[in-house]
Structure formats: structure tokens, C-alpha cells
């Protein structure tokens, strides 16, 4: 569905991504593992159009999308829940969610449906819908961020470190809903450092190191790999 071919990104003379090729298949939950600075965030930002690739192509269902503006990419059905959440902190939860549906704002009924869906995933957001997003707890803010990304009714959802900074119990809930979202038919590309939990819900995984893909395979294979266990799972 979403394909990256020899994708490279450089900042000046620093190569943040080195010829990365990757395939995200329709309906799957793909996890992208790697340590801090491995290039996961760069990869997601490039897919979303926030960064321009210096080489390579990104295609979505055969159509080239690299080089489009971020708003065009959202319209093509790829939305991202970014690292650090990137919420509109002084706006209400409701307004944040509504802006998530900015690209399909003309379809009033569809917006209402998405909103109902998000509230069903995260009932707490309904209760807090008039509070400024910045006043919520970290876990709740992450819910708003994921909810906002879902409001665009994406075919592919990019999630960048949704578990960062959250308490272990909350992390578990977070992964449960991610799995649920995927089960409903949304293709997900999840970038995570928390390999242990992520591998439990993912179908396949890619492992990145200093800007390049070093390994890929099914979750079970990766989870069973000794090197990976030592490097990322710590068991």
C-alpha cells in the first residue's frame, strides 16, 4: 500500500536516512524499532511531507506522493500522530479533534461519525471536551493526539512514539487501543522504542540503526532474534 524506495534524507552533510526501502501492506500493523536517533522520526516526517527527501520515492497505492505538501498528503489519506503530540494546547479538546478533520470539513456527517468513533475509543475525552488540551494529563493528551489523527479518516496512520513519557499501566491501555484501531481496518505504522510491548501487537517489524534498515521480518522472528533481544528488549 505505502512503499518507500531508496529513500534518503540529509541535513547538510549529515545523512539522516540512507537509502531506506520499506513496504507497508494494507491492513497491517507495522512496527518500526530503533534507538533514539536511528531515524524513525525523520522517516515519519518525510512520509508526512514535513521533510523533503534528497533521494528516493514514496508511493501510496502506486501514486507518487513524495514532494507533495503536508496538507496534500493528509488529503491522500495519511495522517500522523507526531512525537511530542503537537496539540493546540490552548484550544479545547473538542476544537483539537475538529481541526483534525480539517481536510474533510465539508462532510459534516462524516465528521460527526469520526468524532463519535473517537469518543467511543476514549470516553474520557468526551467528558473533558471543553478543557484546554494543554491542561490534560500526559496519557489523555496522547489520546487527543491519536484521536485528532483519526479524525482525518486516514487509510494509513503514522504513530510516532505514542508511549513516550507515559506510565506503564497507561502504555498498556494505549497499545490496546492501537490494536483495536488496526483491527477496525486502519493500516498503522508505529515507531517505537518500547520493542517488547510493540512487538506483541505488531504483525511485522523493521529495525533501524543510524538511518538505515538493518533487519526486517515478522514480529515473532524479530522478537526471537538474539541480537534484538539484547539491544532492545533487554532480556
Amino acid at each position, binding site marked *: 500500500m505505502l512503499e518507500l524506495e531508496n529513500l534518503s534524507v540529509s541535513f547538510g552533510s549529515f545523512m539522516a536516512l540512507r537509502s531506506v526501502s520499506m513496504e507497508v501492506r494494507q491492513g497491517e500493523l507495522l512496527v518500526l524499532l530503533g534507538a533514539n536517533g536511528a531515524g524513525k522520526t525523520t522517516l515519519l516526517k518525510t512520509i*508526512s511531507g514535513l521533510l523533503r527527501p534528497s533521494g528516493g520515492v514514496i508511493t501510496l497505492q502506486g501514486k507518487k506522493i513524495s514532494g507533495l*505538501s503536508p496538507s496534500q498528503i493528509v488529503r491522500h489519506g495519511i495522517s500522523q500522530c*507526531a512525537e511530542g503530540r503537537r496539540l493546540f*494546547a490552548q484550544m479545547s479538546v473538542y476544537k483539537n479533534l475538529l*481541526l*483534525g478533520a480539517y481536510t474533510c470539513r465539508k462532510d459534516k456527517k462524516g465528521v460527526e461519525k469520526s468524532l463519535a468513533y473517537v469518543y467511543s475509543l476514549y470516553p474520557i475525552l468526551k467528558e473533558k471536551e471543553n478543557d484546554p488540551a*494543554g491542561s490534560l494529563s500526559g496519557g489523555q493528551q496522547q489520546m487527543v493526539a491519536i484521536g485528532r489523527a483519526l479524525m*482525518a479518516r486516514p487509510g494509513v496512520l503514522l504513530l510516532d512514539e505514542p508511549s513516550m513519557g507515559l506510565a506503564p499501566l497507561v502504555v498498556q491501555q494505549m497499545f490496546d487501543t492501537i490494536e483495536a484501531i488496526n483491527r477496525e481496518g486502519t493500516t498503522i505504522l508505529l515507531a517505537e522504542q518500547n520493542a517488547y510491548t510493540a512487538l506483541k501487537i505488531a504483525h511485522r517489524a523493521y529495525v533501524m540503526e543510524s538511518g538505515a534498515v538493518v533487519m526486517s521480518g515478522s514480529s515473532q522472528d524479530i522478537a526471537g532474534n538474539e541480537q534484538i533481544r539484547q539491544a532492545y528488549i533487554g532480556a
Partner: protein
Amino acid sequence: MELYFQQLLNGLTLGSIYCLVALGLTLIYGIMHIPNFAHGHLYMVGAYCVLFLCTLYGLNYWMAILISMVILAVIGIIMERLVFHPLRDSPPTNSFIAAVGALLFLEAGATVLWGADYRRMPEVFDKVVNIFGIMATQQRLVVIFSALALMGALYLFMKKTLIGSTIEAMSQDREGAFLVGIDANMVSMMTFGVASALAAAAAGLAGPLFLVFPSMGGLLIIKAFVIIVLGGMGSIPGAVAGAYILGLAESLGATVFPAEYKDLVAFILLVIILSIRPTGLFAKEGR
């Protein structure tokens, strides 16, 4: 005592004008991080628009202001496309210089087209009203209330419409705005349009009270900058509060101190506020 009430009224009038100009400046700063030095000169062009629509075409005062707002919105959008858009990926210094260039262009253009002499707008609300011993022309009251109405309209636009909230979204989190699919170009143009229209409205309202001349914008833009620094760069409530604070500080300052020290009052105020709150009254957190 009467004097203080009189100065209160003067300060509110001045504050209202400052407010409309500073709001535009802060909106532009909020989303583009450009200090648009030419903003005061858009105000000047707006004043000439209202003046000519009233005198040459004999338009009704309110119509003239409305049409000028539209004309200025278009000029603002053109300016964004022609001057700032091509520089969006270059260092901020380039935009600063471009803004100064736009300012010089507008002032020189106005001087060539309309001459350097002072002009005056015809007065519509020239009756003098006496409120408990405070004398003022109706125009001053018109300024105060119209500015409030415009601020109300801006508030509704930005809070109650999705299009309007994209401006706020972009100023609160630029990357977040991109990720939900907000089109940066559209928002930039809209912001310049709205800001320039506000400047035109300010000019139209202030016109009958002051003189119209090509360098009139230069005086105002310095004040507007003080205001948005005072209120917190990019903050909307900050611009409103800052504008009234400066307007009142100037008029009351003029009462207490000799004229030479008047600007001192405003700037001492700035220093005090900034030493207590270095990022301004209503600074955004985490910036």
C-alpha cells in the same frame, strides 16, 4: 478629577486604534514569525483609501471603510505572495529586510502618487457631546465602540469558525497544523488579509481625528511593536491588553509629566513589565 476622566477617554480612543493595528501585527507574527515593519504603512494606505472613497467618490463613511478593508485585504495578500512567500525558507533576516523594503516602497509610492502634504478626512460624527463634564466629539466614541465591535467580530471568526481557528492553530503549533492538513499558504494569505483589513479599519476610524500623510504609519508601527512585545509576541489577548495599557499610559502620562517625558512613561512601563515577565504579559508557554 475631571481631567483624569477626560484623559481616560483620550487614552481609550488611542488604545482602540493601537489595538486594531497591533492585533494585525501580532497575528502575522504568530503564524509567520515575521515582524512586519510595513504594517503601519498598510494602515497609511488604508487611510488614503478611505479618504479618496469619501472625497472623490462621495461614498458613505461606513461603506468607504468597508471597501477599504477589502482593498487592503487584497493588498495584504499580494504583499504576502510577492514579498514574504518567496522568502519562507530563507533566514529570518531576509524577511526583516524585505519588510523594511516594503515599508520604504509604500511610503515613497504614496508620496509620489498623492504628495507629501497633510490631508484631512471629512468629519461625519463631528457633534460635541458632553458626558458629565467630559467633552468629546462623537467620532471618539465611534472609534471606541467600533473597535470593540471589530474585536468581537475577530473573536467570533477565530473561535467559532473552523477556517478562523486555523490561524490560531498555526500560531499555537505550526507542525501540528501541518499534520492535520492545514494549508500553510492559505493561512498565511488569510492572516495577511485579515491583518491588513484591520489596519484599514483602524485608519478609517482614526482618519477624521488625525491627519493623513505618507509617513503617518511610521509613528504608529513603533507603538504597535512596543504593544506586542508588552503583551507577548504573537498573543492576541496580549495585543489587546497592551494596546489599552499603552494608550492609557500615554494619555495619563502626558497629564502627570512634561511632554518630553511622555514616551519615557511608556518605555519605563515596558521595562517594568518585561523585567517581571520577560516574555510579555500573555506569553505562550513553552516557546
